[in-house]
């Protein structure tokens, strides 16, 4: 006997985040095997994470954003059709027709067509150089256009029309593309939907401080330019010159298909659905940004995922599962590195409760919480500048937890005695931690207790918590650690899977045992594996510090740059940076650099650390170039190492009419003192001759500013992703004291920091903070100052230029050949012209 099961067809129109989530939830359900799912996407690639679209500007890796690779759909029996738009729905025949004129029939149709950017009807908006911000193709178009602008002029500008959430994301993209960013907003405030006026003002100040130009209350009359955009006009005599415009003025639901086939739509667009996600046609569902539920379009990913889940259950016959009437619109974002969060009711009318507001414009901080009239429950709030408390406050709000008698304590800097709300383990099991994936605290702790997961990565892969917007990740990590701890499992910040030790443990072990080989450390203290790209360079760096060695020892365990004593660049060639202490260089040396660069046809540029960088050297050219550099008196600049880079100086009293002291002389002395030492991360210094601070010393790991009566010493600054000003450590001290404190400070950092931790992050996480650091370094509270100084002095005394070492040792020179069996060079290298020099062919 055969039993025929007639497969039912489900067609999903739209392969965005929500369309994908529908597929994922569908195949995860046992009852789905009697259905065949076909998904149509009009974009040329499978669904990707649009929430993190701006990351594409840094990585330019579209694959990294994919929700799942194309093969995932096939493995789960789903037919994925990309690059083919659904053009028509015939509700009577229950068929759809694509733009390629192919017809498919359906039993259930799921519309997840999302939205498209709204482009206001401004005159000239069709001009070249005007973009929208929605798809990877849009981004690729922008990148190509920005590259053109950058090649034509050094000071290109781009504006974003719209100061909402997406507009500010696009502003980040403009920054990343190297153009001067302008945000143009019609409303009198930024992020009008999420923020109140005061928080919006704080956000504006913060964004301006990092270089965004913000223009509020501006209605754009027309886009200027002949064929391509050259500016925007707001009113008579009120224009802004720009080379590019990104329109981000809101979204419109893509409901044209639904309108054409007569489904009920809202006045302002969107397909009307009930709480089962059903449209006015019983066989058609709508989910995500296209669905008009409660007369609202929900532009967040979490409600979209919930809708996908409801539609799956409804189609598979579980009709109890419906959308809740109240949808949590809480959200936490990092916009251009600035925390912004709102939860519950951010703008509560005074009749419903009281607001408590903490504002500090000098630090760009704003916190507001709304508390019920009886002061017992939290109704909502807004955080700008620091949203570290968001997860906790959001949980308190969601679970109606009790709040302190003085609710202000929820947002005021924590007093002594730790967090007021106890720890994460106090949350009820049903507390929803990840709202994107609807994961509760109970589920997170459960997978650890059931031994399905034993670390954070395991918890994330079992529960999917943290894979949506990522805002809950810190809390998932806290819960994971707390649960492990409660089970008696020790949580260690071990360096990698090959050691159960952290960097500080390894430091002590290598120091005490005197190990000089990686294998000795691994065999005696490892977990039985063979090492990896995390522990090998770390052990190499520790042995270099402890034994005052160069990176030439055991070159196979050195990080690639240290192995070849040069910085690997995009196409596998290297750049060369000789040391120019303090930035002082004689004309003869400058000429020598030019001649060498010319001889080897090297792209030449002044670095951010005001040294001269020569790019495009092949492996076999490196020793030849260095022999010549050394003969002109140069030595390695360690630009490739986790070690001292430069000590930047201003010209100081040597020439400057304002100079208070010889900043160049002292800068050179310090650079020569600390050159070559290996540290947890790179170290930069700066010395300024007066408080005008031309050397930007406060942006360095250590900085000195000459004042009346000596130097002011600052520590723990850096640029990078999280710029930090160094903090004042000691005032009006003489040269000798500076060196004493710096020796101790740097050595203490090298002993105790985590791998790849800059001084700023290390200092911030030291228990007791800067005061503790002063006690250790200045007052010698731990009684180690003498040891620290001695260790540093040994490193200083035993300095050797590792390039001089390498070119004088035939054995060491063997590594600088592209092939072991041929003198030929890499035949895969392609250079293209760039202004008057060359660059590697761009990556596709």
């Amino acid at each position: 006997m055969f039993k025929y099961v007639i497969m039912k067809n489900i067609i999903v129109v739209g392969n965005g985040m929500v369309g994908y989530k529908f597929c994922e939830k569908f195949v995860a359900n046992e009852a789905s095997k009697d259905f065949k799912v076909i998904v149509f996407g009009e974009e040329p690639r499978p669904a990707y994470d649009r929430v993190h679209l701006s990351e594409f500007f840094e990585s330019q890796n579209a694959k990294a954003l994919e929700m799942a690779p194309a093969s995932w759909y096939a493995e789960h029996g789903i037919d994925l059709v990309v690059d083919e738009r659904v053009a028509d729905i015939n509700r009577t025949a229950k068929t759809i027709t694509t733009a390629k004129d192919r017809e498919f029939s359906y039993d259930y149709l799921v519309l997840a067509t999302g939205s498209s950017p709204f482009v206001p009807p401004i005159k000239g908006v069709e001009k070249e150089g005007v973009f929208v911000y929605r798809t990877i193709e849009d981004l690729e178009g922008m990148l190509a256009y920005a590259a053109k602008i950058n090649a034509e002029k050094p000071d290109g500008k781009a504006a974003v029309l719209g100061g909402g959430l997406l507009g500010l994301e696009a502003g980040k993209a403009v920054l990343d593309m190297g153009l001067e960013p302008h945000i143009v907003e019609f409303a009198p405030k930024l992020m009008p939907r999420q923020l109140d006026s005061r928080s919006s003002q704080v956000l504006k100040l913060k964004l301006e401080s990092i270089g965004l130009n913000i223009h509020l209350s501006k209605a754009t009359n027309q886009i200027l330019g002949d064929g391509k955009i050259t500016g925007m006009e707001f009113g008579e005599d009120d224009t802004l010159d720009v080379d590019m415009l990104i329109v981000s003025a809101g979204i419109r639901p893509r409901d044209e298909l639904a309108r054409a086939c007569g489904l009920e739509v809202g006045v302002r667009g969107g397909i009307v659905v009930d709480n089962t996600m059903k449209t006015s046609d019983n066989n058609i569902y709508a989910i995500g940004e296209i669905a008009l539920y409660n007369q609202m379009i929900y532009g967040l990913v979490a409600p979209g995922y919930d809708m996908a889940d409801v539609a799956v259950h409804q189609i598979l016959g579980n009709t109890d599962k419906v959308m809740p009437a109240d949808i949590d619109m809480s959200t936490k974002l990092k916009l251009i590195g600035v925390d912004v969060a709102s939860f519950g009711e951010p703008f509560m009318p005074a009749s419903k409760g009281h607001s408590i507001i903490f504002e500090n414009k000098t630090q760009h901080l704003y916190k507001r919480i709304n508390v019920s009239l009886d002061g017992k429950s939290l109704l909502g709030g807004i955080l700008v500048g620091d949203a570290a408390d968001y997860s906790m406050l959001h949980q308190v709000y969601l679970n109606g937890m009790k709040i302190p008698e003085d609710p202000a304590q929820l947002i005021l800097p924590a007093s002594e005695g730790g967090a007021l709300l106890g720890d994460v383990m106090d949350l009820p099991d049903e507390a929803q931690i990840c709202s994107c994936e609807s994961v509760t605290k109970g589920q997170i702790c459960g997978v650890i207790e059931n031994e399905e997961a034993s670390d954070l990565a395991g918890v994330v892969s079992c529960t999917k918590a943290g894979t949506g917007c990522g805002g809950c990740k810190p809390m998932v990590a806290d819960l994971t650690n707390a649960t492990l701890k409660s089970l008696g499992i020790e949580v260690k910040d071990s360096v990698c899977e090959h050691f159960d030790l952290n960097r500080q443990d390894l430091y002590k072990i290598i120091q005490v045992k005197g190990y000089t080989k990686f294998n000795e450390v691994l065999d005696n203290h490892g977990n039985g594996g063979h090492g990896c790209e995390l522990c090998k360079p770390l052990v190499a760096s520790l042995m270099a510090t402890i034994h005052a060695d160069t990176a030439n020892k055991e070159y196979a365990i050195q990080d690639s740059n240290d192995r070849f004593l040069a910085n690997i660049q995009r196409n596998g060639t290297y750049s060369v940076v000789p040391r120019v202490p303090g930035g002082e260089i004689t004309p003869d040396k400058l000429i020598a650099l030019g001649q060498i660069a010319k001889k080897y046809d090297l792209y030449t540029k002044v670095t951010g650390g005001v040294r001269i960088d020569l790019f495009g050297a092949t492996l076999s050219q490196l020793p030849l170039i260095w022999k010549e550099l050394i003969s002109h008196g140069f030595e390695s600049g360690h630009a490739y190492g986790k070690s001292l880079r430069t000590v930047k100086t201003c010209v100081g009293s040597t020439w400057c009419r304002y100079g208070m002291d010889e900043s160049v002389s002292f800068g050179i002395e310090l650079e020569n003192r600390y050159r070559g030492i290996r540290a947890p991360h790179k170290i930069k210094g700066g010395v300024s001759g007066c408080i005008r601070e031309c050397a930007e010393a406060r942006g360095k790991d250590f900085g000195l500013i000459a004042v009346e009566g000596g130097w002011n010493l600052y520590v723990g600054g850096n640029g990078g992703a999280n710029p930090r000003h160094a903090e004042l450590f000691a005032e009006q001290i003489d040269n000798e004291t500076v060196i004493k404190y710096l020796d101790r400070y740097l050595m203490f950092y090298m002993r105790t920091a985590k791998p790849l931790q800059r001084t700023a992050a290390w200092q911030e996480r030291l228990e007791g903070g800067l005061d503790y650091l002063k006690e250790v370094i200045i007052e010698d509270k731990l009684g180690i100052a003498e040891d620290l100084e001695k260790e540093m002095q040994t490193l200083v005394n035993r300095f050797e230029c590792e390039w001089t070492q390498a070119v004088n040792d035939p054995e060491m020179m063997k590594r600088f050949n592209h092939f072991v069996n041929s003198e030929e060079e890499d035949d895969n290298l392609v250079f293209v012209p760039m202004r008057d020099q060359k660059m590697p062919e761009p990556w596709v």
Partner: protein
Amino acid sequence: METILDKYKATEVANVKVWFKAASINDFPKDGGACVKYKDKQIAVFNFTRLNKWYACQNLCPHKMEMVLSRGMIGDDKGIPKVACPLHKKTFSLETGENLNSDLNAIAVYPVKVEEGFVYIGFDE
């Protein structure tokens, strides 16, 4: 269109037609690698001393199509011998070529044998 990737096809010992004598074992660092030229191919060869094994794979990292894998660091990922690309630390199994930390395509791996102090790589052409 033939791309540079098409030059590299994983080869099984059973299909080896040519054992190419590449270089002396002393030309390769312990627990490290170097690059061998064979016809128009670039092959990364690793001397995994800790396992007392030799591995060979394409020198081309499929992430950004650069000839750099031989300069990568080797080690293991939960017991699987691997190489980490020096450009962006993408890691690949030296046994199967599989990409271990994202979803790039596998790289081609080739058989290696050592005879009388010389390293041979097996090719099917």
